């Protein structure tokens, strides 16, 4: 018996510790425990065995990490090879005959486990992993059952914090290297490593530098023992207390898949589910640990109505009546143009659709905007050719015209990093300042704030093979030469301190590229769903413009607005001048979210009526006429749309405390009180109505969404072949292995998704063509005029930090402690020129206003610019920005 498999020790050094051959289409025949199987050439034996029903025990190997062969738990016997081989680093070869349960193998497994348990404390009763621990489980299944070791085990100080969120118990660590490899290979934050040798090997952080990574929680999930524990979850439950529901994270627009777990009606844990096209098992720490806000005492549990100047708690019928009366009043005095609806980008698809239907179909106003001046024009987002996240992996090049993804869309950062770093896709970074992805960029282009056009032009030329005279141009041409595939442009607001026209203009220079596709980098959790469902002026649900969809929607709804309405900036301005008298704020607080706080304040002060749909008593709700608290993420089942346009389901895991109303019922109830009964009883009926009425959602009904494992990308007609049903592999796995997404069993007929014939992974999905042609973005705008650089002023760059002042962070104690005071980030040169030092407080003045902030030297910020986080609590960037001006120039004076 000969095989051509080569053990890892003999691989060429450049391949060692990397997966040697990408599994190809060719298959080879391998016999595992007497069963022959066809396996793609180059697949690792451990994975091949798992896919064919043989579980080989393992500690260090993880499907999403490179194999290292550290734990030796996966030893198998391969006929024709001397000794036992580690199956996690042995690629399959034709004719291999493998034994996983022979005497030699079980003896080896006994030995390995006995060795591992020499130093492993028998801590299980106090260990968070106890009950779901691979070491416990595999010792029970494969171990010797008894230890001959009677000597003292090694001792370390019990849990030591290695970051604000993660604790390390070095006694329990079995040195598998999953955490260190994750931090280095996947997150790109190599802040933990092994120190010491032999029995005193331990995971360490570098010299007083804690494991500050936005992805640290993933190490806790994949650690095969309880060595890493998460502070927010520690001791809050044991595995047998937990009930789980699959859902998507609701903290940003990536919508990572997760398994949401609760005990005693409290959300306690979110684990990453391995959705191949989206998050591949990872979550960021904000999504993973942003749970406690749902149960926060600050949540509103009762509607409130202003009576005699005071907000008082009231019943739902009274509050809805009061809101409807206020709206009717405004309609009588100001007509439909006196009402505007702002927000909806943090909700779900169902409420976005019904708010759009209420505003446009019932009230007749088109003054509706989900973005508060912090986004991109809907014309662009809805009309640009859209990319999906998997397109990144096979792209010819990725062009970043986006804010810092590591801060705003963390798991998208992981996917871009993987494409660029592991898969060799050229990454072109066009930005004002350095950010998380800059180290992985093939070409870096820097431009002055407000003026990305020229840089985009260089990129556009280079991507069609015209390097021009610049070095970066040549670098791009060299890197992309001979590659094909789509050019994926990640498009977002690089800075909220400049007018969006600048970035749109830059993007328009790239639209001519062959196979160009855009991935939106707008960050609010459901901003894409809100735009797709018509919460934006000039559009109707389903990515159709007001004019194109007029007939279709007049039939469906009875009426649509006559003319295109105002966007958020226009609405706020009109409210400030009294033209708009009633503002409906759907889960948004303009004072915190709008980049121009002065404008928002003027608008809220002037408006006669403010109806706030808000889970918290935020600053806007304080001045509201009626406050309606909706049910939130984790408390209601619904759907959300992520930045690819992928519609995924959100699960309900806990029952809300107090009296809140499912978010989509609020607009439906208001409509009923204003004389239009939508006749919708369940959330499924809303989804079915969306599928029926909104052209881009054609075919995406409740039943399809239930069965589609990774959701459905819009429009279905273009992505029908990507929809997958059924379970991959063995279904829901334990938490330390990649957990696979599982579709829900359909309704009352108790078919198991994996056995239903029509849902076999290859079943074709009926994809109706949209009844109305979808909107396309053409007409590239003219270059906006940017004032010349002023040598004495600094230009403001403002972006969002991961841990900003939003409700999720503010009302979750574990995350609230991670926020920072806003500072003024300056390049060392500007700092010296201004004669200030780190920590000095300075007065920053723009045409719009002035604030006092402390100075911080920031190497990422280039000379001539100043960096302020836009979503920090307290005075900051929003007090300085004017929504209408192309850039924000600021002056700095020292104060004593």
């Amino acid at each position, binding site marked *: 018996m000969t095989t051509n498999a080569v053990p890892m020790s003999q691989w060429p050094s450049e391949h060692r510790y990397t997966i040697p051959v990408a599994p190809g289409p060719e298959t080879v025949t391998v016999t595992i425990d007497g069963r022959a199987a066809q396996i793609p050439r180059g697949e690792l034996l451990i994975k091949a065995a798992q896919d064919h029903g043989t579980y080989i025990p393992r500690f260090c190997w993880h499907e999403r990490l490179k194999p290292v062969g550290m734990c030796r738990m996966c030893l198998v016997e391969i006929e024709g090879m001397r000794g036992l081989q580690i199956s996690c680093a042995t690629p399959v070869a034709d004719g291999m005959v493998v034994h996983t349960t022979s005497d030699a193998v079980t003896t080896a497994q006994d030995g390995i486990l006995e060795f591992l348990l020499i130093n492993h404390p028998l801590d299980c*009763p*106090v260990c968070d992993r*106890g*009950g779901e621990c691979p070491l416990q489980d595999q010792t029970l299944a494969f171990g010797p059952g008894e230890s001959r070791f009677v000597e003292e085990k090694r001792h370390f100080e*019990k*849990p030591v914090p290695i970051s604000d969120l993660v604790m390390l118990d070095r006694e329990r660590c079995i040195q598998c290297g999953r955490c260190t490899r994750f931090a280095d290979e996947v997150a790109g934050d190599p802040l933990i490593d092994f120190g010491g040798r032999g029995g005193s090997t331990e995971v360490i952080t570098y010299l007083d530098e804690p494991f500050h990574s936005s992805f640290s929680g993933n190490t806790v999930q994949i650690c095969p023992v309880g060595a890493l524990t998460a502070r927010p979850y*520690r*001791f*809050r*439950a*044991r595995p*047998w*207390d937990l009930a789980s529901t699959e859902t998507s994270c609701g903290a940003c627009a990536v919508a990572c898949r997760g398994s949401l777990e609760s005990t005693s009606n409290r959300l306690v844990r979110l684990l990453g589910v391995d959705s191949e096209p989206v998050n591949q098992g990872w979550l960021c720490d904000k999504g993973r640990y942003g749970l406690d806000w749902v149960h926060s005492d600050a949540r509103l549990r009762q509607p409130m109505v202003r009576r005699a100047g005071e907000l008082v708690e009231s019943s739902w019928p009274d509050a809805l009546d009061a809101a409807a009366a206020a709206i009717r009043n405004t309609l009588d005095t100001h007509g439909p143009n006196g009402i505007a609806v702002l927000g909806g980008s943090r909700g779900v698809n169902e409420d976005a659709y019904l708010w759009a239907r209420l505003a446009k179909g019932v009230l007749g106003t088109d003054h509706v905007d989900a973005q508060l001046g912090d986004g991109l024009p809907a014309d662009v987002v809805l009309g640009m050719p859209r990319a999906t996240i998997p397109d990144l992996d096979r792209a010819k090049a990725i062009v970043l015209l986006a804010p810092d993804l590591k801060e705003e869309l963390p798991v998208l950062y992981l996917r871009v990093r993987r494409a660029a770093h592991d898969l060799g896709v050229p990454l072109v970074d066009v930005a004002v300042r350095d950010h998380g992805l800059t180290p992985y960029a093939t070409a870096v282009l820097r431009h002055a704030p407000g003026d990305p056009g020229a840089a985009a032009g260089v990129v556009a030329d280079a991507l069609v093979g015209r390097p021009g005279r610049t070095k970066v141009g040549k670098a791009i041409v060299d890197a992309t030469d001979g590659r094909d595939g789509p050019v994926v442009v990640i498009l977002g607001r690089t800075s909220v301190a400049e007018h969006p026209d600048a970035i749109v203009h830059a993007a328009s220079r790239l639209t001519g590229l062959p196979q160009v596709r855009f991935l939106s980098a707008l960050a609010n959790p459901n901003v894409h769903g809100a735009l797709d469902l018509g919460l934006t002026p000039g559009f109707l649900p389903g990515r159709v413009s007001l004019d194109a969809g007029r007939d279709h929607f007049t039939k469906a709804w009875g009426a649509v607005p006559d003319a295109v309405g105002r966007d958020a900036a226009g609405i706020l301005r009109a409210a400030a001048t009294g033209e708009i008298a009633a503002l409906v704020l759907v889960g948004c607080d303009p004072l915190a979210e709008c980049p121009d706080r002065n404008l928002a304040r003027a608008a809220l002060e002037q408006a006669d009526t403010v109806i706030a749909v808000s889970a918290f008593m935020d600053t806007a709700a304080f001045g509201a006429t009626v406050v309606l608290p909706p049910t939130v993420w984790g408390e209601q089942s619904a759907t959300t749309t992520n930045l690819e346009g992928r519609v995924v389901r959100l699960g309900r895991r806990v029952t809300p405390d107090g009296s809140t109303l499912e978010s989509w019922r609020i607009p439906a109830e208001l409509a009923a009180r204003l004389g239009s009964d939508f006749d919708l009883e369940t959330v499924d009926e809303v989804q079915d109505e969306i599928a029926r009425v909104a052209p881009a959602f054609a075919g995406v009904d409740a039943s399809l969404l239930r069965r589609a494992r990774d959701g459905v990308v819009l429009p279905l007609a273009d992505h029908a072949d990507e929809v997958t049903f059924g379970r991959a592999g063995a279904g829901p796995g334990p938490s330390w292995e990649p957990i696979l997404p599982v579709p829900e069993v359909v309704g009352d007929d108790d078919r198991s998704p994996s056995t239903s014939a029509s849902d076999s992974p290859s079943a074709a999905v009926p994809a109706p063509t949209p009844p109305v042609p979808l909107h396309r973005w053409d007409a590239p705008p003219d270059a906006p005029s940017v004032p010349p650089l002023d040598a004495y002023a600094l230009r403001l760059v403002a972006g969002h930090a991961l841990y900003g002042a939003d409700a999720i962070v503010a009302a979750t104690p574990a995350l609230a402690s991670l926020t920072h005071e806003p500072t003024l980030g300056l390049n060392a040169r500007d700092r010296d020129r201004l004669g200030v030092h780190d920590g000095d407080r300075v007065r920053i003045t723009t045409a719009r206003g002035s604030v006092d902030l402390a100075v911080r030297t920031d190497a990422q910020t280039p000379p001539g610019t100043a960096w302020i986080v836009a979503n920090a609590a307290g005075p900051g960037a929003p007090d300085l920005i004017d929504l209408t001006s192309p850039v924000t120039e600021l002056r700095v004076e020292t104060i004593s």
Partner: protein
Amino acid sequence: MGRLSGFRVTITQVFRPRVTEKFPQEKRPKPPRFHGRHVLNRYEDGMEKCIGCELCAGVCPAQCIYVRGADNLTDAPVSPGERYGFVYEINYLRCIHCDLCVEACPTEAITETKLFEFSFARRQDAIYTKDELLVDDEGRARRQPWELWLGGEDDETSAWMRATSSSGNAAYENRVAWSGELGFGVREPERGQGGDPGALPAPDQGGVS
């Protein structure tokens, strides 16, 4: 004697020893392994034995135990180790006194006294929390007004014993040694059913290893 023959049973009973007792003034001694109302034990230094591991809650067939753990404060620990039982409740309206919780407990924290004479007028009283279950500073059960303690029921409460046989082997006998207990110190190890005292470890070598 024909008339008296009908009283034969009665007359024989008159001369038999009396089996009824003046309950509740007097109680019969109960067997040492009697399963009564539980206590949560403490170590000799006063620390709680319960570590909040929820194994008892996990095993309880009546699902009547509710436990939640929490981090021990380093300057004022409640139990040795990282974690302690922050909430501990047993609902005696559901408990079937099977003692599986006692068997599951890795630290001999939950054990049973021999008291079964307790009844409730209010449902809340039936839910024993740490306030009721935790032994007092003498290591004795805290007596509730509705419980009838006559003495003896709370002696040697930490009489831990298996309720089930090891690995299904009924003949298996382990030797149980004890950790010190507030109010009682270290108990004599219990004899196995085979009763070979020579094979037992001396009490001072105690400690479960």
